[in-house]
Structures are given as C-alpha cells and as structure tokens.
C-alpha cells in the first residue's frame, strides 16, 4: 500500500527551507560546494543550487556522485563511473552532501569515502530530504527536510519530477 506523506508543494517548501538554512549556517557562502548522491540526491542538489542562485546571485559548484563502487553492502555491484570532481574542486571547501533519504547511514559513509579518496574538504555537512531513522553508523544530518519515523518493513519512496513525473514522498507498506 502506498501512502503519500509529502506532496509536491511541501517538498518544494522543504527544499527552500534547507536552502535558507544552508545560507544561515555558511555565512558568505564563498567556499560552498554541493555534491548530490545519484540519482535523486543529484536532482535535489541541482534544485538547491538554483535556489541559491536566485537568492544570492552566486553560482555554487555542484557535482553528482555515484557511490556504487564505495558501498560495503553490495560488493558485487560495480561500475566504472568516476566522480565528476577533482581534488582541486573540494580541497579546503565547505562541502554539502545531499541525498534523498537517510536510513542506515551506509550510503553516506560510502559518499564520504568517495570524497575523501579524492580530496580534503575543510568541512562536510549533510542535507537530506527525509530522515527515517534506523541508523547503523554514527552519522547525523545537519539539514533535515522531514523526520519520518518508520519501521524496517516500510519503504520510503521519493519521486521527483525530473525522472518520476511528479514530486512526492510515499510510504510503502507490504
């Protein structure tokens, strides 16, 4: 059974709020770099980038990151995609890592590994659209769109207009 818990309007607002908070916590925004975890995190990063552009008239560098190669839970899955950014792009920068759902924390760990394997940012913070709990690693998000307490049996599905035709967050129970 699918139940829509966040509609397109709320999702849009949530992203706007995260953008505001990013501005508030990064005075000046000079060293900001956005890295979106593929696939939906990447679209989220693009949307935050465009909001920052509208608000502050600055082009914040934004990259996509595929973490498949760095995951510890699916070692059999690999692809040859290399990250889009180089060490110069992240060294000494203030990186905001963006993903759609924060769950066990393993994706984030993989993303951190991927970034650290390339360069050394001065700070990495994490923005997620949904925090559904059940962490298996000591990771917490700096910017949270929605806290949605779930059970292990449930699934959170984030749909985004860019690939899924509409913006929404659903909870799926079997």
């Amino acid at each position, binding site marked *: 059974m699918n139940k829509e818990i966040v509609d397109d309007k709320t999702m849009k607002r949530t992203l706007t709020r995260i953008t*505001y908070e990013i*501005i*508030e916590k990064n005075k000046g925004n000079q060293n900001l770099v956005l890295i979106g975890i593929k696939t939906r995190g990447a679209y989220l990063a693009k949307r935050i980038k465009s*909001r920052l552009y*509208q608000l*502050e008239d600055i082009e914040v560098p934004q990259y996509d990151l595929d973490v498949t190669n760095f995951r510890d839970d699916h070692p059999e899955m690999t692809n040859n995609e290399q990250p889009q950014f180089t060490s110069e792009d992240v060294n000494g920068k203030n990186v905001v890592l963006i993903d759609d759902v924060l769950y066990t924390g393993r994706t984030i760990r993989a993303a951190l590994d991927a970034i650290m394997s390339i360069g050394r940012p001065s700070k990495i913070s994490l923005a997620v659209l949904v925090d559904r709990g059940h962490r298996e690693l000591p990771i917490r998000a700096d910017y949270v769109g929605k806290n949605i307490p779930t059970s292990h049996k449930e699934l959170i599905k984030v749909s985004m207009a860019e690939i899924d035709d509409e913006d929404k967050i659903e909870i799926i129970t079997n």
Partner: protein
Amino acid sequence: MKRYLILEDGTVFCGDSVGSTTISTGELVVTNNIGGLEQTITDQTYNDQIIVFVSPLISTIGMNRDDYESIALSCKGVIFNSIPINQMDESNPKSLAHFLKKRRLPGITNVNIQRLAAHVKKHGAMKASIMDADDEHAIDQIRALVIPHDRVKTVSTKQPYPNPNVGFKIAVIDLGLKFSILRQLSIRKCDSIILPYNISAEDILELDPDAVLFTSGPGDPREIPETIATCQQLEGKLPIFGIGLGHLVVALANGAEIEQMSYGHHGSNIPTLEIATENIEFSNHNHNYTVAHTNVAQINFFITYRCVEDNTIEGLRHRSDPTMTVQFQPEAAPGTHDTLYIFDEFIEMINSFKQGNQL
C-alpha cells in the same frame, strides 16, 4: 441621503450614505479585496483610514461574525462602488448597513470608484473626509487635520493576556493584532502570550518564550522606537518572526531604511514572487511603507519575497540569526491560502533553532 467624499486636494466624489451619518476624516486607501469584507473592516491596520473598495457587490450573504479580525474596529469610513440591495436593509441584523450603523461607521456607496481609484493611483495616498456638504470650509478642515502619530499605541493591547495551548510558547507583540494570526498559531498548537507594543526585551526574556512574533499594525514604524529597541535586544537570542509592521520593525532594528510608497499595497490578491523558487503566490497586502532597496545589500539580510508588479521587498531573512519577516499578511483573512505555509516555516525555524542549541 447624499454624502460627499472630499479629498485633501479638493477633488470631490458624491454618493449615497450608508451606515452612520457622522462626519469623519482619515487617510484614504484603496483596496482590491473582493471577498472578506468583514475581515477587511475589522483589520486594525486600517486604523484611522477610510477604506475604498474597488469591487462592487462584495458579500451578498451578510456579515459573518466568525470572520472578525478584531473586536473594536478602528477605521474611519468605508467607500463602496455599489452595495447589493439586501445588504442595504438596516433592519436585517446580518446586513452590512446594520453593521455599519451599529458600529457607528460612516460609509458612502454608488461612488465613481474608477475615477477615485485612478485619482489615488496618480496622485498618491491622501487625506479625505466624509461630509454632508461640499463647501470650501470642508477642505480647510481636512488640511488642518493632523494624522495621529500614536496609532500603534491606540490599537495595541494595554494588558498582556494568554492564548493558551500546548506547543511552543510564542511572545506575540501586539502592534495591531489580527485574530487570524492567533488562529494560525492555535492551529499549530502554539501557546501564545499577547503583549503590549512597549514591553521591554527583559520582560519578554523573563517569560522564557520559544520565539517572538511582531504582528502587523497601522502607521509608520518609526513612531514606535521602543518596539524597535526591544527587537534589537532580542535578535539572535530567540527566533523572531515579523509580519507587516513587524517586518518593518525588524528591518529598522537591523539598520535598514524604509520609505513611504505612493499609494501602497492594499489588497488580497497581490502577486508575490518567492525568490528561491521563482514561484508566484497571491497574498494579502496592506502597507504604505516598505523597506528601501538602497542599503538592503549592506544589512545582514537576504530578500526572500518581492512583489512582481513593482519589485517592492516583501520578505527578509537574516543571514545568521533565526529571524524571518514578511511584509504581506501570510494569515490571509481575507485572501488566498497560498502563503499560510509561512507559519509552518516559523515553527520549523523554532525547531531547528532548538536543535542547534542542543548541539
């Protein structure tokens, strides 16, 4: 009975009397509101003003007592394009005519609103008077009238009072409170305390609220330096939300400049652009002053909303402190529900401020 609306510059408009037959003088404002007549008339922001309704036949269903925005209305008069016949019946307790009579509010109907609106648009806001006769004496009287400089003092509550609930404790600084602000806070379970405009920061902190809200209200914010000082002292210590006049108070507290607009924004259907998303929303505006663009780049704020038509600044957010403001009235009443979410943003701002404090 024939009555006259005489403008400060000598222009005369003629129409038929409705409601009280007293003589009255005030600042003329033209509003676009189509519905929500009772909400507009009872809005304290219209203190000492004569409200002109552009649209005809508003509200044929009578005055809805659930929609009052204050108990003691304080506007000076109402000018109508036309009034439906059933609302002219003073004996009907739900009618507009009955309401105006009972509240001793003078009105004129069947006025050439198009000429009046065009005049105000061209020559800017001005003083005007509702009179029984059109003579030279009248204009002298209007010119002699000084618009009071203590409007907030008149409309603000004298005593603090609570609006209890179970959630966040909000200190609501009443500069001309609309009930709908409290309604929106109640929907979000806020435990509000309504405080007079001249309360000190110390007294507010003593109450240990989770956030402070400066409400909308009438007049020029520079007339209430005590409120501005209070705001300055609270900033950074507590999340602050400013609406309407409250927005201007917060801006002044942070060194922004404000300017008077030619005829202001009055209406429940003014297109506002949310800058982050480039999306247009329709919101209820009611202001004659605005934050000037001149030094807004120097103060520590970024612009979150602007008016589509004339680029007026309609919303600000502090770059580091949990402070947000909007010039329009997000509680609507009257008007669309497009911007009600701003109250949710306020709650979210309190939430993340609290989380930040716990770190």
